[in-house]
């Protein structure tokens, strides 16, 4: 009984959280929202008045209070093969080929590592909110031997992330979280749309096919997809049902 109460309250908590922040990412709404949105494969991230950049092994912090004049405040050694950086509130989520690192930016000028979740060598972008981190691992000859799929970590205790779900997926790459919906680019296997209101049990709603999907940005009512042949824009007035508006072809 205790366990199920705990579980259902977690679902409620997460749902409330997800719904409450579903408008946070809406662009053009507030003048204060002066930064844009990056895809999940990015190595640059802006949080507040700071620019965080990763290269192979280091995390560089720049104060951009005056955006025209970045001033370096910190350099941290992270390890090898850093792939992506994703900011959420007072955290940075850093995807590497061997695991996910969580950094606290409570002191934004000097990030400190608080937690990590290591895994078998693979390629792995990450998106997150306050309680859950979603990581896609792409195991193959170039990335490493991990089983490809979605890995869901409970990060309410950031010092000790708990793997609560793994879901095998073909060639997952970029991903994005918007409200209770998770979009996952699975290369030739399409763009998969999941309901993750209960993050321990993602429910696949549909798969959009017709392109080789690499990365994705939800931007208001628009879903921007980076595919091998160009960029595809979908209308996501109904977030569970992307409707294609335009393919901007590479050539």
């Amino acid at each position: 009984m205790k366990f199920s109460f705990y579980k259902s309250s977690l679902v409620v908590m997460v749902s409330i959280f997800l719904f409450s922040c579903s408008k946070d990412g809406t662009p053009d709404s507030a003048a204060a929202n002066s930064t844009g949105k990056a895809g999940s494969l990015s190595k640059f991230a802006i949080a507040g008045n700071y620019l965080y950049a990763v290269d192979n092994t280091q995390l560089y912090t720049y104060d951009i209070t005056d955006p025209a004049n970045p001033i370096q405040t910190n350099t941290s050694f992270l390890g090898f093969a850093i792939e992506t950086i994703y900011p959420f509130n007072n955290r940075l989520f850093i995807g590497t080929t061997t695991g996910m690192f969580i950094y606290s930016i409570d002191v934004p000028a000097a990030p400190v590592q608080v937690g990590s979740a290591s895994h078998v060598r693979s390629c792995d972008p990450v998106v997150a909110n306050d309680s859950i981190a979603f990581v896609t691992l792409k195991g193959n000859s170039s990335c490493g031997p991990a089983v490809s799929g979605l890995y869901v970590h409970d990060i309410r205790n950031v010092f000790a992330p708990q793997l609560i779900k793994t879901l095998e997926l073909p060639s997952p790459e970029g991903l994005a979280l918007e409200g209770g919906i998770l979009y996952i680019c699975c290369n030739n296997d399409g763009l998969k749309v999941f309901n993750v209101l209960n993050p321990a049990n993602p429910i696949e709603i549909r798969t959009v096919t017709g392109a080789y999907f690499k990365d994705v940005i939800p931007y208001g009512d628009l879903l921007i997809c980076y595919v091998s042949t160009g960029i595809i824009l979908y209308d996501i007035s109904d977030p569970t049902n992307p409707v294609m508006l335009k393919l901007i072809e590479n050539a």
Partner: protein
Amino acid sequence: MVFFSNSPAMRLLLLLLILFSITSCWTRNSRPRFIDPHVHVWGNKPVYAARTEAKTISYLDSALPVIVPGNIYAKGNFIYQLEIGKGIHVIDKTNPAQAERIGFITVNGSSQISIKDNYLYTNNYDDLVVIDISNSNSVSVVKRVAGAFPEGASNYFYIEPIESGYYECPRYDSVVVAWVKDSIWTSCSKN
């Protein structure tokens, strides 16, 4: 080096070694394929543009085709997409159904992007540069942090020679404008 050229078996071993070293360091981001050991052979040698060109950042007010696509970024009415090692495509999505590329910011050696207000952050090889994008038909560099990403220098992207075989790995801080046949030390190879 005689060791490697003596017998067909040794050549096969060398080939396997090369193939292994290629696949072992191949990542999603197509990093340079460094070859070891170094051997003197006939192969492709890079021809570089003048040094100033490598660090010149400019805006082209018309669309270019996407050859080596990279990260995407969205802000306001625009989408930006990296052209790996070359610069940033600008896409107008004011009317999504008619969205199209409208311009190109030339930033050689670039691979990343972020934006705050009207300032775009990217890398010009291993330099961090801040580009003022407030003007719709020109850009200007307002700050350059030289050597900001020393580790990232080894991630520099470039276009390989068209033909397969050995070529000299290009310097990471220079623009390759062409390839010529010459006697080179093997440092890179293309399948």
